[in-house]
């Protein structure tokens, strides 16, 4: 009996972090409608762009998607670029536009261009405190001829946009429709049914313990 109880407890403990999780949208600009040629923001080793999203409470981020396109897909297929996450703006160590000190990059995810559309890391389990963060689309320094762009024309504007032009830091840019790109950040939250199952399991454990003591 003791062995069974231990096994049940361990199983519940193991199930806790992998309980079925639902995806909830933390921030979504919507799909950009801007053309790939005409006013899309170019990405190369000197030209990066970042925009912010805000968490009102501690959150576990599960995916970060940017809308990336190419003006010359036949050349860019297989080329790599980076989606990077920078720290809270409330911290000076974070990505603060016009702050010339070292920016604090929390994480960076190498991506490979295959087709126009949403692209970025998924299946993440990034625990972030409440605050504002920046997501940047950056090109690798050793990229070849690169024709990547991030189309603009999003329906929901971010609170801040920052650009990097090969200097020491990102600089603030107006958070306007022509300078904002497509960004979609999602968080993982346990589904109610999973939580219920977890609670039921814990309750069962409590009952067994109580009966043994009785």
């Amino acid at each position, binding site marked *: 009996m003791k062995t069974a109880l231990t096994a049940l407890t361990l199983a519940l403990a193991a199930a806790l972090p992998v309980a079925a999780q639902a995806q909830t949208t933390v921030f979504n600009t919507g799909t950009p409608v801007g053309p790939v040629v005409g*006013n899309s*923001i*170019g990405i190369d080793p*000197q*030209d990066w762009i970042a925009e912010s999203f805000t968490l009102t409470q501690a959150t576990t981020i599960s995916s970060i998607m940017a809308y990336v396109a190419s003006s010359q897909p036949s*050349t860019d297929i297989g080329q790599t670029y980076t989606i990077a996450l920078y720290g809270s703006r409330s911290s000076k160590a974070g990505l603060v536009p016009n702050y010339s000190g070292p920016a604090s990059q929390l994480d960076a995810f190498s991506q490979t261009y295959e087709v126009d559309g949403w692209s970025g890391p998924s299946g993440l389990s990034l625990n972030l405190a409440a605050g504002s963060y920046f997501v940047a689309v950056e090109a690798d320094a050793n990229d070849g*001829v*690169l024709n990547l762009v991030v189309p603009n024309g999003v329906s929901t504007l971010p609170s801040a946009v920052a650009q990097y032009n090969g200097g020491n830091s990102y600089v603030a*840019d107006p958070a306007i429709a022509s300078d904002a790109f497509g960004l979609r950040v999602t968080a993982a939250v346990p589904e109610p049914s999973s939580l219920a199952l977890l609670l039921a399991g814990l309750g069962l454990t409590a009952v067994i313990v109580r009966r043994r003591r009785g």
Partner: protein
Amino acid sequence: MQTLTPRGARVACAIAMAIASTLAGAQTTDTVVLSFATVGDSRQDNAKPDPSQLPLTGQDKIWLQNTKAFGRILREIAAKKANLLFFNGDMVLGYGNASPSSNVSDVNSVINSDLVRFYTEYAYWRGMAATLMETGTYVVPVPGNHETQCRTALAAPSINATTGVYVPQVVCGTLVNGVDTLGSVNGGKNALAQNENAFRANMGDLIIDQSRLPAMLPNGLTLANVDLSDHASLDYPFISGNANVTAAAPQNQLSFSFDVGTTHFAVINNDVSGGNDNTAPVNWLTADFAAARQRGATNFFVFGHKPAYTYNYAGNGGAAAGLDANAYTTANRDAFWAVIQAYNATYFCGHQHTFNMSQPQPAPSGSALPAAWQVVVGSGGSPFDPKSSASGLAPTDRDYAYAIVNVYQSGNVVISAYGFTSAYGPTKLIAQTTLAPL
């Protein structure tokens, strides 16, 4: 031995075709075999800077360059890994008379001479461009009117109230009774042989370094048929019977050409000494292109300073700023464009401080060739010609912009223009076109 049934054969055939199609699809990826950038007009203005760039920095007051805009363009061109940069003129404010100082015993006279101003402005620009040479992009200079022309300015030397910059007195011809003999010729702007010499003295090592350039070419491409000879006698004087238009000084290293693989590049001087301003060396170019085609050249690119067809931006009011300056030059321009069109060439230029891509003329009736393109990229940092107060400006009229041209293995040529605003917003892809192989 087993044989396939008809149905089995069809299935096997379909599978084979699908595999072949997939493999063929995997092989259609096109690759860039040669890439070049082009931009012009980075010089600052001592009297009329763009209001968006005020106040000028101390260094730009002295060396008269828009360092911030041009520096960013250079960094971006390096990042895009262009193999060459053609800089379409007006790298310096110049506009003086590059004769030696008349009073060599007076230090101030020497320092403030037009010759020293030319040389110091050239040196600053060369220092900026040198960074590109060291990161794999060969810089090819193109003469502009601020390099070759002298502009008469007889007012006493002064300090401009807006910029704080020294504005010299400039005598381009000879001062007779207080009047410059060239002051009333060609609007007081005239190319001088000594200015052409100053361009050659400060840029000649780049035109063309036949050791450095081949070492910087990609994909096994070779440099060949470098023509740095003087062909002035073929084209100048460009009209006869005009006392103000005479034979030109030697044009070696001012108009020149070379091949990189099957791509032919020609650089032309538009403002030529002897009164041959606002022109193109049509006769030399015709012979040069014919020889290049004979050698097997498939792509033709020409770089000059002045547009063949003036871009009439909002507020320009139809003023002619290029090779269409007057009836004589327009006739020369028409002959020049006929050569551009006949070889399916593309003409890159500057002079107008703005960006514009256009096919200014339709393809000739019955021609299998598409209409030729003119790309104005005089947007390297000089004060914008389109004023912010003008209504109806195109969104990119006041962008600092440059073009990247990629030549693909397939023969396709893609011209992409990138620009950023005078407020230094993010760089955007502002225009693009593909020239298909013939």
